[in-house]
């Protein structure tokens, strides 16, 4: 790193040159003065004699630069000549590395955008999600009451500001058909917390944030382009919304601004943002929970400190409002963490696999280079005898590898450039996927990879190729005998096999898990079911009676459509992962405070079990009853809490939904269904029967024929009776179920692709290395044959040599896999991490492909013509 130091020291170096040369000129001048010249003339003569000082400085500079720039340029020139001399060899390496580095950079670009970079808001690291929860109960309450949010915001000392939001699906009715728009209702200070302003127009005014103030709405860039063609005139225009509830939300909203295209919050579907007045009379109840709360910390404040601060605030509130606030605690999470969520592990596993792949490629290339080094022994010996130092030669050899790696990484960057689109197409639900781009960080990463690859692939061959003495000796002897260095080459092959086995086992486990998942009996019948949502608003829950009537009317209309067998409501789709875990109390029987009854809570309407083909075991589930809410439980619940005794007739109550106490009587028991996700065993479940459609409620319709054929008729029928509502999210239940495992499937496909590539590379390595040894031992083989050795023995010896390495590689691969399958736990369903079928299958597969890879060169060795070889001597 001398050159680096010389770069840093450049300035002081220049000054030193100057001082040294000036001293010389002064001495010359002095000599001239001593010889009797006038001082001016003496200096002029001295300068003349000395020659150009600037030129001299330039030459001194050259002296200090030469070793770096010139050697590098020379090495590169020579390396380029070698590339052109062996184009096929070079192209193989470049392409292998292009794939290896490209795939690696592509996944890294996703990791960088999704996990590493801070959120794209100004000072994104200051943003946190604030959750309130009840430590005593298991049920998390993620939402906060408006008044409590205002208290937190006022009383804390660690936040710049706090805000909150909730989302509804709204129907915009100024077009010919109602259009469903995702409408976020936001607490004050919303844009202030994000640190952004509208791209066009303005933020809300204080009057607009008050109850009864003018209705204002900010629209997304997407909606702006779609509806207004990107015309700035949109600001000031009005949007009309359906289902107006008197006194709650008037229907006309004035557009006050347009957000920038990169503002995708709460999610990428958000179209509208309106103020939600915190001083509204209906917002004063401390028990209602509306808001998902976001806060911006003051600069330099840690999450822990803010959490402690907010805990103190909540403690004060608990004293002030013991009834509603005493039991609550607060929790803070970095907003990035809550946004990125589960994708983190998938991405790292993906990154691990592409890195393994790159390592295999490197090992493969190292073996290739090592073999080639033997051919170059003569050249290297010549270099040594011409006075090159070992360092020079190693530098030259590494430069050659670097040139290949550099070209490979350039090609790989091309691959990574397409990755952003690939991710957007195949993982549209990946959080922050729109932020994946190819920028200088990825370019830098690819170049660093090239450098790392250079050392990984090049160092071992360079070190071994330049061992003095051996180089000379071997130049003569490699034709007749094989030195101990083939141990290294075989070790490299073994490493490839081991890494490939690791990837194969990972891929195999995921595939087995998917297969198990497909075989699962869900307990309900997902075929012939169409699902849809109809826009609703929370405001409508003010008049439950009207809401129930309206919901019933819609359900009856749906059931009357020809081709419909059954229709019902459900709060969340069966089999799509998700649960609403709450604590309930069973009124009858002894109350054991230590035994908590935790259930998955679902709201369904009359006819749900018939529509989903969930068998009714006892009783009559969900018959409309005007007095109490009928409750149905599943078999797990009945068995867990009532054992052999009857479940019917017991009463359940729950206060988990604050401000919305639930109570009901068990009227029926149904069979266990995998409601919470096909990959999880059914848990004790309580179905509260209620014919009320909240925002987010699904309508499930069982059809006689192809469900998608009914999509349009159903849509039109609903429009006839509910012209101001939009129908959206129309899809079959099967599509939802498939969609919920899209990420698992993609992960499996990618890992399988990598594993197949890895095995192919390992086989190539095995084949190449064995072929090479066969070729250099041609003479020995010829001699043996001439002396009467059997051809089968020759072939067998090579075959065994290759297979021995494969088996040892497999064993190491198994150990490596056993150590790393832990990473997959939680992603597997129905198979253990040490699934013997997978392990045995992988070993068989590897050996099956290793046999032809070793057999070909072995047979070629046995076919050697002894006369031919001996004549060559």
């Amino acid at each position, binding site marked *: 790193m001398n050159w680096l130091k010389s770069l840093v020291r450049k300035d002081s170096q220049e000054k030193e040159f100057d001082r*040294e040369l000036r*001293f*010389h000129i002064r*001495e*010359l001048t002095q000599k001239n003065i001593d010889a009797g010249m006038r001082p001016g003339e003496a200096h002029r003569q001295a300068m003349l*004699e000395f*020659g150009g000082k600037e030129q*001299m400085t330039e*030459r001194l500079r050259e002296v200090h630069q030469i070793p770096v720039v010139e050697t590098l340029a020379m090495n590169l020139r020579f390396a380029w000549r070698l590339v052109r001399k062996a184009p096929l060899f070079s192209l193989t390496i470049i392409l292998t590395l292009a794939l290896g580095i490209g795939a690696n950079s592509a996944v890294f670009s996703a990791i960088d955008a999704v996990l590493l970079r801070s959120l794209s808001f100004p000072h994104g690291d200051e943003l946190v999600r604030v959750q309130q929860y009840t430590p005593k109960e298991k049920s998390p309450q993620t939402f906060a009451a408006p008044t409590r949010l205002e208290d937190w915001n006022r009383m804390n000392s660690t936040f710049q500001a706090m805000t909150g939001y909730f989302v509804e699906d709204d129907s915009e009715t100024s077009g010919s058909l109602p259009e469903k728009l995702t409408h976020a209702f936001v607490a004050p200070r919303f844009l202030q917390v994000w640190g952004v302003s509208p791209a066009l127009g303005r933020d809300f005014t204080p009057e607009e944030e008050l109850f009864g103030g003018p209705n204002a709405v900010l629209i997304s860039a997407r909606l702006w382009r779609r509806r207004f063609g990107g015309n700035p005139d949109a600001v000031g225009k009005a949007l009309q919304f359906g289902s107006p509830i008197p006194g709650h939300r008037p229907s006309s909203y004035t557009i006050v601004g347009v957000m920038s295209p990169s503002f995708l919050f709460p999610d990428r579907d958000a179209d509208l943002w309106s103020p939600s007045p915190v001083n509204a009379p209906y917002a004063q109840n401390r028990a209602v929970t509306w808001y998902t709360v976001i806060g911006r910390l003051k600069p330099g404040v840690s999450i822990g400190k803010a959490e402690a601060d907010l805990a103190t605030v909540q403690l004060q509130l608990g004293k002030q409002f013991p009834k509603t606030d005493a039991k609550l605690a607060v929790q803070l999470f970095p907003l990035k963490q809550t946004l990125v969520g589960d994708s983190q592990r998938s991405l790292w596993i993906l990154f691990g696999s592409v890195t393994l792949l790159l390592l295999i490629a490197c090992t493969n290339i190292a073996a290739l280079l090592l073999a080639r080094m033997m051919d170059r022994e003569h050249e290297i010996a010549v270099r040594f005898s011409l006075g090159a130092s070992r360092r020079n030669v190693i530098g030259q050899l590494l430069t050659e590898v670097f040139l290949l790696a550099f070209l490979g990484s350039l090609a790989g960057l091309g691959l990574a450039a397409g990755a952003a689109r690939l991710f957007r197409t195949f993982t549209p639900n990946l959080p922050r996927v729109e932020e994946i781009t190819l920028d200088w960080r990825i370019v830098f990463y690819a170049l660093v990879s090239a450098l790392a690859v250079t050392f990984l692939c090049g160092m071992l061959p360079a070190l071994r190729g330049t061992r003095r003495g051996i180089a000379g000796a071997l130049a003569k002897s490699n034709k007749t005998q094989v030195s101990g260095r083939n141990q290294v080459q075989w070790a490299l092959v073994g490493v490839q096999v081991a890494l490939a086995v690791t990837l194969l086992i990972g891929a195999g486990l995921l595939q087995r898990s998917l297969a198990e998942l497909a075989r699962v009996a869900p307990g309900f019948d997902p075929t012939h079911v169409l699902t849809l949502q109809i826009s609703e608003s929370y405001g409508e829950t003010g008049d439950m009676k009207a809401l129930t009537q309206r919901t019933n009317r819609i359900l009856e209309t749906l059931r009357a459509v020809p081709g419909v067998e059954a229709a019902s409501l459900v709060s969340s789709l069966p089999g799509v992962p998700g649960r609403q875990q709450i604590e309930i109390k069973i009124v009858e029987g002894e109350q054991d405070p230590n035994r908590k009854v935790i259930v998955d809570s679902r709201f369904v309407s009359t006819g749900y079990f018939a529509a989903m083909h969930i068998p009714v075991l006892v009783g009559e589930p969900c018959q409309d009853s005007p007095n109490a809410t009928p409750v149905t439980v599943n078999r797990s619940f009945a068995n867990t809490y009532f054992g052999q005794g009857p479940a019917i007739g017991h009463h359940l109550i729950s206060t988990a939904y604050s401000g919305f106490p639930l109570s009901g009587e068990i009227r029926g028991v149904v069979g266990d269904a995998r409601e919470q996700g096909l990959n999880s065993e059914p848990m004790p479940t309580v179905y509260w029967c209620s014919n009320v459609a909240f925002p987010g409620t699904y309508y499930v319709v069982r059809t006689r024929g192809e469900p998608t054929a009914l999509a349009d008729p159903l849509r039109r029928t609903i429009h006839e009776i509910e012209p101001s509502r939009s129908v959206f999210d129309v899809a079959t239940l099967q599509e939802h179920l498939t969609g919920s495992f899209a990420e698992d499937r993609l992960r499996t496909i990618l890992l399988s692709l990598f594993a197949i590539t890895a095995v192919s590379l390992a086989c190539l390595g095995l084949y190449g290395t064995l072929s090479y040894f066969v070729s250099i031992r041609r003479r020995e083989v010829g001699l043996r044959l001439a002396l009467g050795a059997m051809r089968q023995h020759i072939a067998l010896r090579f075959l065994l040599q290759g297979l021995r390495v494969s088996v040892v590689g497999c064993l190491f691969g198994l150990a490596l896999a056993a150590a790393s399958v832990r990473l997959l736990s939680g992603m597997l369903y129905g198979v253990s991490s040490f699934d013997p079928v997978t392990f045995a299958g992988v070993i068989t597969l590897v050996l099956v492909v290793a046999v032809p890879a070793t057999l070909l060169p072995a047979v070629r060795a046995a076919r050697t013509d002894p006369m031919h070889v001996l004549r060559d001597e």
Partner: protein
Amino acid sequence: MTPDKKSELLQGTLDMLILKVVALCPIHGYGISQRIRQISKDVLQVQQGSLYPALHRLEKRGWLESAWRESENGRQAKFYKLSAKGRKQLAQEELTWQRLAGAIALILQTSE
């Protein structure tokens, strides 16, 4: 000083001469050029244009070491001195040179 009395330095010999002069005592660049001229009785003249690059090259190779010191007339000057590696190098070069010179002399002495 007539042109015919000046001699061009043979390729590669400048380094050896510098090492030799520096071996006598630590000395600055100006001193080296004066010393070579004196000792060779004005036959050899070192061009400053080749002297300084040579000095820096030798120092970079580790044959010379340098330090800033006060010169005989009180000014700060960069003094060069021979390193242990340089001493070895000088001995080797002297040997090579003597062998070469001897060989050339032998050839020249051969009568036709």
